[in-house]
């Protein structure tokens, strides 16, 4: 586990809720949860969550830090927004789940084999290269995310689909070479680099105290 994680454990020793409020996107909403369970009942993948959203919120208040941040559950959100529009207290639950997932990733606590965590990272890395998503490269990266042997199997399984996509002009093998991009790529990268610096500076304010 990373240095940042150790420092955060030290800093927020007595309150995981405070840690979430200070460091997780929209985390300040967690304490508003009234445990009604509408979110858990509304989630399309609810039956697959080890801990559905309602439980995650209670676990945060109960200080179950590792159980929450190492959970596969926070990577189970399809972003359907059912929970958001139904929550009687109007918690932005979708965003809190994304925020918890991102925080877990920053701390290096993501379960190693979780496919959505891998895919979500690939998506971000892919779009950051050229400013636009390269679907072909993203698809290939996805096939091979569990190694070469597994990748060949997945690719073969999807071969017919790939051919159909190409035939209908909805997949282009030429995207492997270059592909679509923003024109002011240097400007795009400068803007995103600055945004990341500012984000890091804000995190450092909440993070480990100086000299820790």
């Amino acid at each position: 586990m990373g240095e940042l994680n150790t420092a955060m454990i030290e800093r927020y020793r007595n309150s995981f809720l405070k840690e979430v409020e200070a460091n997780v996107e929209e985390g300040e909403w967690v304490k508003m949860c009234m445990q009604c369970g509408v979110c858990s009942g509304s989630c399309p993948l609810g039956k697959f969550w080890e801990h559905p959203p309602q439980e995650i919120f209670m676990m945060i208040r109960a200080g179950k830090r590792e159980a929450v941040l190492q959970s596969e559950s926070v990577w189970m959100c399809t972003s359907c927004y059912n929970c958001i529009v139904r929550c009687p207290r109007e918690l932005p639950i979708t965003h809190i789940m994304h925020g918890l997932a991102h925080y877990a990733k920053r701390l290096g606590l993501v379960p190693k084999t979780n496919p959505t965590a891998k895919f979500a990272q690939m998506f971000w890395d892919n779009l950051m290269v050229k400013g636009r998503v390269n679907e072909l490269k993203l698809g290939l990266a996805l096939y091979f995310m569990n190694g070469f042997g597994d990748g060949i199997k997945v690719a073969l399984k999807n071969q017919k689909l790939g051919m159909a996509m190409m035939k209908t002009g909805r997949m282009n093998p030429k995207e492997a070479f270059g592909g679509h991009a923003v024109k002011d790529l240097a400007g795009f990268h400068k803007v995103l680099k600055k945004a990341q610096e500012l984000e890091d500076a804000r995190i450092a304010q909440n993070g480990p105290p100086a000299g820790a």
Partner: protein
Amino acid sequence: MAKREYSFYPGCSSQKGASSSNYLISVQTMCEELEVQLNEIPDWNCCAASIGYAGGGELPRLTLSARNIALSEQHHPGQDIVATCAACWLSTREAAERLHEDQSLLAECNTALAEAGLKLRNETPIKHMAEVLIEDLGYEALQARVKKPLEGIKIAGYVGCQTNRPFGIAGESYENPKYLDKLVETLGGDSIPDYEKKVQCCGGALAFSEPEKSQEMVKGIIEAAYDHGADLIVTPCPVCQMNVEVYQDQINQTYGTKFQMPVVYYSTLLAVAYGRSAKDAALNGQIIPAKALDALAAK
């Protein structure tokens, strides 16, 4: 009537050779007929959709959308932004609202944008194309141009998630939106107002990472359409379209079903009803051909 103009955010999946390039073609045809002029935002970038959150923190993600809005405000001042992709629309509108509520985030965003000489004023309304059709133009105007009514074609209106929640279309409910049904009726087709899977999630981006879980949900969406005797499904979202259309072979293998249900965009329906060719309606982009529409377009 003077042309309506919008600042257009097409999004990654609509680019040439990408998974919803057929959507863009039918939208362009539809807009020609409706005298709507789409001015593409110059040099737009990806919005990070709803799956960029692993690598992308709050500010970098918001900055992606802020760059697009800033470019739009610079090059197309006074024009509303319109997106055809549900995820593009949602991310952009969400970013605009978050930056409106949090002035310190807005200030940071503008510090980042200044690196490329851009500035976000954040005063631009952000719409989905379905809002343009239903709120700006209205059903009457849409009906006035129908040359080939979709007579005898039964269509399940699959609204899905992100065109519906958390923003949606004015006056529609989250749980039972009716605008696709009304649109189908407007074009002379037979709607299925009690299509119970109309707002069921298809899995979104998890169709890639958790295919079994997603395909189980898609199976329900298609099965319900068959139960109602639908000839095809119509949707306003590129992720819905792709997930519900292209995995039917795999679903048939897993579950022993014999699904062969066409899934089209609303823009394809309009293009055909307005008398345009199969090519202009992008019917050649269907992996599962929409035969009823092919036949009508050929008439």
